[in-house]
């Protein structure tokens, strides 16, 4: 025979567990809008039936249920979606960084417009046409000089603005590295807390959520991989353990960032910022993880920023901004050098001498866009060599030739033959600049498209994840009613048993009284 009070115990357990479920429902509703929160569920399990198999068991027809108990409180989440989300988020981070950098570059280049380099060059060319019609006119010469100045200043402006954006990118790299380190530290601390809770048989659901949120954040910055490590002790089978977090380097090798609850590594850029608080002016040569060098990172915002800023992986400097600056230097160098060559074949106005330099001589392609200057020779307007022959003030043939420098094909330079080998080997300056802008446009278009694509993909994964883990108020309400009714019913059982007991205690053995 079972105990007289067996029913009371069953009902009490039922009430306690339904109450727990109701509180969990409350927790879900309260966190309906918390980012990264996954809904939680109380796992109801039947408690051990009575009697258990044993030598002294009472002989009753069968085992009798003893009610319910809460097996555990679990969060509803699918780790596969997390993995997918982080993959897409990583791509989005990379393309977003690239698209931002390219968009800023487009803003600076400002083509096609009536104020870009192309227009300035056109006006310079026009000034020489006007000079060719009026070679002896000081006004026309003065316009040529001013337009020359405008070309020089446009080159300076473009190069300086690109460099200044490059410095901003350097700062952004620093900030990104700092936030990677901060996330690594937080992950390590959460791992520690989890490793302390789990061996006691608990599931620290809210810590899990926070850890997953941090991993989502980290995945936008670098490509990561997570490996759970069981906590040991009395941990539940469903316990997630502490996470080892790896980041992928440029060669696709994984590198340990967070070593479970043991510690974490600090990421830093190389060369490190030693002299100035800002980044080094040169390209990055690598990254240091915990003091040892790794070959950059695979994908993610950090990679996008590094590629925009410029890096040197041992085979020369690469990157969006260094490339554009280099092209601008090539353009400025070829333009100034060739222009000088043609200018020197002409003759000045008075006294009529062979033409000197128009732009001051550039010695190297590197930095030409910043170094290009009008020669001090041109301070005297008479020194503009518009004439093709000495002592012919009315001769404007050299001015026409100068005007045509913009459109002369570098594959076939004549009159005069080139004195140096040009970095531009074919096509005109105009075509070279057009291809620069075309390339920029195509790259930006591609980055924008991929930002959109990966955003859509991430969104769809996020939707599926929300579908699993998101809190639905209707569902919680339904559950609330279910739990409430079960709770009420359990209470009603107690009343019934109470009446039963009343019968036994107060109403039995009083026959005939």
């Amino acid at each position: 025979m079972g105990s007289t009070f067996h029913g009371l115990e069953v009902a009490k357990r039922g009430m306690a567990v339904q109450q727990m479920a109701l509180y969990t429902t409350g927790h879900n509703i309260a966190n309906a809008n918390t980012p990264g929160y996954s809904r939680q569920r109380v796992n109801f399990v039947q408690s051990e039936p009575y009697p258990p198999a044993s030598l002294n068991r009472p002989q009753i027809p069968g085992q009798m249920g003893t009610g319910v108990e809460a097996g555990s409180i679990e969060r509803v989440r699918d780790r596969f979606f997390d993995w997918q989300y982080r993959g897409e988020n990583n791509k989005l981070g990379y393309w977003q960084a690239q698209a931002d950098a390219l968009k800023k570059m487009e803003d600076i280049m400002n083509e096609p417009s009536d104020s870009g380099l192309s227009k300035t060059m056109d006006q310079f060319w026009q000034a020489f046409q006007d000079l060719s019609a009026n070679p002896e006119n000081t006004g026309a010469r003065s316009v040529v000089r001013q337009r020359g100045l405008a070309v020089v200043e446009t080159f300076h402006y473009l190069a300086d603005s690109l460099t200044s954006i490059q410095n901003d990118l350097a700062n952004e790299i620093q900030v990104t590295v700092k936030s990677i380190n901060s996330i690594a530290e937080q992950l390590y601390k959460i791992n520690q807390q989890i490793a302390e809770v789990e061996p006691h048989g608990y599931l620290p659901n809210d810590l899990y959520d926070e850890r997953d949120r941090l991993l989502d954040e980290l995945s936008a910055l670098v490509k990561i991989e997570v490996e759970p490590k069981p906590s040991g002790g009395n941990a539940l089978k469903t316990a997630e353990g502490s996470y080892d977090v790896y980041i992928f380097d440029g060669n696709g090798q994984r590198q340990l960032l967070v070593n479970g609850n043991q510690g974490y590594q600090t990421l830093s850029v190389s060369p490190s910022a030693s002299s100035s608080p800002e980044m080094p002016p040169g390209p990055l040569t690598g990254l240091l993880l915990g003091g040892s060098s790794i070959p950059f990172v695979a994908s993610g915002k950090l990679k996008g920023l590094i590629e925009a800023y410029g890096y040197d992986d041992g085979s020369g400097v690469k990157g969006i901004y260094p490339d554009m600056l280099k092209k601008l230097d090539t353009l400025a160098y070829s333009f100034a050098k060739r222009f000088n060559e043609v200018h020197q074949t002409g003759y000045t106005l008075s006294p009529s001498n062979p033409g000197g330099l128009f732009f001051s001589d550039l010695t190297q392609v590197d930095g030409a866009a910043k170094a290009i200057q009008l020669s001090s020779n041109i301070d005297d307007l008479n020194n503009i060599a518009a004439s093709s022959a000495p002592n012919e003030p009315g001769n404007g043939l050299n001015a026409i030739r100068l005007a045509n420098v913009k459109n002369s094909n570098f594959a076939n330079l004549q009159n005069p033959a080139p004195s140096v080998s040009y970095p531009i080997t074919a096509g005109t300056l105009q075509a070279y600049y057009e291809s620069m802008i075309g390339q920029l446009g195509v790259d930006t278009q591609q980055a924008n498209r991929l930002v959109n694509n990966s955003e859509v993909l991430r969104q769809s994964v996020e939707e599926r994840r929300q579908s699993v883990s998101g809190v639905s108020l209707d569902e919680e309400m339904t559950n609330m009613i279910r739990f409430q009714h079960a709770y009420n019913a359990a209470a009603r059982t107690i009343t019934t048993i109470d009446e039963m007991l009343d019968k036994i205690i107060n109403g039995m053995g009083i026959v005939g009284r």
Partner: protein
Amino acid sequence: MMRVTQSMLTQNMLRNLSQSYERLGKIQDQLSTGKKIARPSDDPVVAIKGMAYRTNLTEVEQFKRNFSEAHNWIDASDSALNEATQVLQRIRELVVQASNDTYEQSQREHIAKEIDELKNHLVSIANTQIAGKYIFNGTDTLRPPVNLDDPVNKVSTNTEQVKIELLKGIQLPVNVNPTRVFTYSATPGQGLFSDLEALVNDLEAGKSGQELNGYLSYIDKHIDNVLAERAELGARSNRLELMEARVDEQEVIAQQILSDNEDADIERVITDLKTQESVHRAALGVGARIIQPTLLDFLR
């Protein structure tokens, strides 16, 4: 079955709304700038074509500017030579008069004075300037071509052409060759100014009508020289006009190509705007509706 929650709906709604705003923004850009694209990445091909077409248009506009300069030269030269022809005709008349032996010496001296003045006038015609440039001195435009007081270089010998680029690679000479008109020579009949000086001297020296008559053929030859240069100028002016018509046409074409390439098709953009507007309104309407009551509102 996929579980759908309120927050999923609201997130989607917000995303759709912001996409709708983005499209509206693009249409607004197109309408307010009148251009299809605002940055190269909108359409790289249109962007680089646009740069090339702009350069093309600037070139054509510049050539048009050069045309007025060329007209200036040719018109000024022509009118100067026209005047020179008239002066020479007058001199010829005077010589015909003077070769009449009924003229007395004093009358011939008057004629000599007039011819001397006309000669000086021819010098000033030869030294015509436009915008500070001597147009009858080849490329040596800063010095007067004729200076009869100079013992050696009385007239200029500069035969260089002044060329102006009027089409890509086509440079048209705009000046006349002054050494064919304004000449000075020791040989009689070879130099305009030398012949006139000799004529004046002969008139003053009281040479006979027969002798003076010889100058008529010289003067006729000089008139011929001037007319030959004017004929060439006329031909060149003709060519100039043909080229100008062509450049005018090119300008229209260049502008049209530029416009075709990058100007927004306003009718289409406005239609797009209208469509997008309805889509946006629908999105807003849906947005208002998906924030539905929950089960909570029906429980009591």
